[in-house]
C-alpha cells in the first residue's frame, strides 16, 4: 500500500476525521453538539456499525485506500485495520483545535461544555461501577454501632425516668428492662410487686414513659435485625474474614481500611493496628509506648490470652486476617476453616509457652 496514496480515518468526540500521512485534515463529518448523541455514535462505531458520519467521510475521499482503527468493511475500498493508528493520537492531542477547525464548535466555551457533559456521564457510570458491596458493609456496621451507643444512652434515661415511679424494679440487661416497661401499664402489674417507695404517677405520666420505652424497644429489635443482616452480607462479601473473626469485627476492619481491596493490600502489621491510629501517631511523634493492637483487642482471642502474651497473639491474628482478606478479595474461595484451625492451634501454643 505504501506506494499508493492512503488516508487515515479515525473518530473522536468531535466526529469522524480523515488525515493524510502528513496529518493534514482532508475530510471530516462532525457529530451533533450533544453529549449523549456523541457517546451513542462512538459506541456504535466501536460495535462496528457504519454510522452516517463515517459513510460521509469515506465517500468524500479521493482514494480507495484507508488505514484505520475502526472496524469497518466497505465494498470497493481497501481497508487496513490496525489496533492503534497515530492519527487517533493526533486527534486526541489536538481535539480542541480540530473541533474549532472542523466547525464542530464555534468557540472554546462550547467545546468546554461538551467535554464536561461527556465526562459527567462517564464519571457517573464509573462511580456506579466502583462502589462495591463492601461499602454497604461499612455503612451497616457503623449503623449497628450507632444503634448500640444510642440504645445504651436511652436505656440509662429510661431507668432514671421509670425509676422515679418504680425504683424497686431490678432487671439485668437494658433490653429486658425496656421490654418489661414497654409491655405493662402500671407497676402493680409486675409479678414481684410488693409496694413501692416511688412516687405516684397518673396515666398521662405513665403513658409518656411507656411510649419512650416502646420506641427504645423498637431500636433494640432493629439492632438485632441489623446484626443478622450484617452476618448475611459478610458471608457474601468476605466469608473468610467473617469465619475467622466474626461479622461485626470483620466489617469494622473493612470499614476502617476503607474497602476490602484496601484491607487486602495492607501488611499484617497495619491490620493489627487498625483502630489504634491515635496511639500509633502519638508513639511516632515521640510520646508514649507503641500500641500492640487496634480493634482486634476486643476479640475473645485476645481477651483469653494472658496479658504478657497478647502482643504476640495479636500478631498471629493479624497475619491470619491478612491471608483471609487476600483470599476474599482475590480468589473468592473459602479457606476460613483451615485458617481458623491453624490460628487456634498457634494461639494455644502461645498461651502455653
Amino acid at each position, binding site marked *: 500500500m505504501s506506494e499508493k496514496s492512503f488516508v487515515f480515518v479515525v473518530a473522536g468526540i468531535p466526529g469522524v476525521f480523515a488525515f493524510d500521512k502528513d496529518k493534514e485534515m482532508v475530510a471530516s463529518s462532525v457529530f451533533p453538539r450533544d453529549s449523549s448523541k456523541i457517546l451513542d455514535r462512538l459506541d456504535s462505531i466501536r460495535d462496528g456499525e457504519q454510522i452516517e458520519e463515517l459513510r460521509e467521510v469515506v465517500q468524500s475521499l479521493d482514494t480507495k485506500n484507508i488505514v484505520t482503527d475502526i472496524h469497518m468493511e466497505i465494498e470497493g475500498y481497501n481497508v487496513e485495520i490496525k489496533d492503534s493508528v497515530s492519527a487517533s493520537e493526533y486527534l486526541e492531542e489536538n481535539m480542541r483545535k480540530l473541533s474549532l477547525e472542523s466547525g464542530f464548535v464555534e*468557540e472554546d466555551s462550547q467545546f468546554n461544555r461538551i467535554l464536561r457533559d461527556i465526562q459527567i456521564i462517564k464519571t457517573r457510570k464509573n*462511580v456506579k461501577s466502583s462502589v462495591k458491596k463492601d461499602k454497604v458493609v461499612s455503612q451497616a456496621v457503623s449503623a449497628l454501632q450507632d444503634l448500640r451507643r444510642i440504645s445504651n444512652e436511652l436505656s440509662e434515661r429510661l431507668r432514671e425516668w421509670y425509676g422515679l415511679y418504680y425504683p424497686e424494679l431490678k432487671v439485668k440487661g437494658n433490653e429486658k428492662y425496656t421490654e418489661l416497661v414497654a409491655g405493662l401499664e402500671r407497676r402493680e402489674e409486675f409479678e414481684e410487686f410488693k409496694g413501692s417507695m416511688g412516687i405516684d404517677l397518673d396515666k398521662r405520666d405513665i403513658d409518656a414513659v411507656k411510649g419512650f420505652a416502646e420506641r427504645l424497644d423498637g431500636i433494640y429489635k432493629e439492632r438485632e435485625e441489623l446484626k443478622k443482616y450484617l452476618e448475611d452480607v459478610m458471608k457474601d462479601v468476605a466469608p473468610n474474614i467473617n469465619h475467622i473473626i466474626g461479622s461485626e469485627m470483620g466489617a469494622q476492619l473493612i470499614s476502617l481500611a476503607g474497602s476490602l481491596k484496601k484491607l487486602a493490600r495492607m501488611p499484617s502489621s497495619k491490620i493489627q493496628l487498625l483502630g489504634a491510629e491515635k496511639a500509633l501517631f502519638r508513639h511516632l511523634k515521640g510520646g508514649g509506648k507503641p500500641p500492640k493492637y487496634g480493634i482486634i483487642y476486643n476479640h475473645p482471642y485476645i481477651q483469653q490470652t494472658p496479658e504478657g502474651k497478647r502482643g504476640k497473639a495479636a500478631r498471629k491474628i493479624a497475619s491470619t486476617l491478612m491471608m483471609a482478606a487476600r483470599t476474599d478479595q482475590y480468589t473468592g474461595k473459602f479457606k476460613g476453616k483451615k485458617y481458623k484451625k491453624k490460628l487456634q492451634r498457634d494461639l494455644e501454643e502461645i498461651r502455653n509457652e
Partner: protein
Amino acid sequence: MNEIFEGVFKERGDFYTKSLDPGHKVYGESLVKKSGREFRKWNPDRSKLAAALKKGLDTLPMKKGTKVLYLGAAQGTTPSHVSDIVGEQGIAYLVEFSERAMRDLLDICERRVNMVPILGDARKPTDYGWVEDVDVVYQDVAQPDQVEILKRNVDEFLKDRGWIMVSIKARAMDVTREPKDIYREVESQLDGDFDIKEILELDPFEDDHCFIVAQKV
C-alpha cells in the same frame, strides 16, 4: 471591592470571586451582590488557596481562559472558585480518586460549564491521557509521594513555562519529622525543574501545611 488579581476581589480583608453560577452556594459561603454582580466569599478555613491569599500570596497564575489540571479536587470547594476565575473560556480538569467525594463534585460540575470531572488516580496520568496540555497544574492530594505524583502529571500535561500550585501537608508526608525540614526537602526536589516563586506557610488556617507557586523552567 478591589480586584487584586483578574477575577479575585478583596474587601475588608476578605477575598471573593465573581460567581459563574449566581444565586447558588457551593459550600455554604456567603453571597454578596455589588452593582449587579454576585460575589462568593472565599473561606480560608475551607480552601487552602484562600488561606494562601490571606497569607499574602503575590503570584496567582490564573485568569479568564486559563486551563487548569486540578489533582485532588475533593468536594469541589476550591475548584468552584477556580471555575469562577477562569470563566467559561477557561477549563478545569478535576481529578478525584474517592467516589464518595466525586458524588458531591458531580453536582457542582452539573452547574458549572467549565468543570470537567475525572474519577481517577493522579498517580496514573495515562488513565486520563486525553486531557489537553494545561497552563497550571494545581495539586492538593496529601500523599507521601505527592512530589512524584506532581512530576508525572507535569511531564504529561504542563505547557512550557506553565505553573504549578501545590499544597504540601507535612503530616501526610512524614509525621515524625519537623514540617520545616519537609518543606525544605520538597523545595530541593522541585528545584531545577521549577523556578519557585513563593512558599507560604498556611497557619493558622491549616496547621503544618505550606503552599508553593512555581514556574516550569
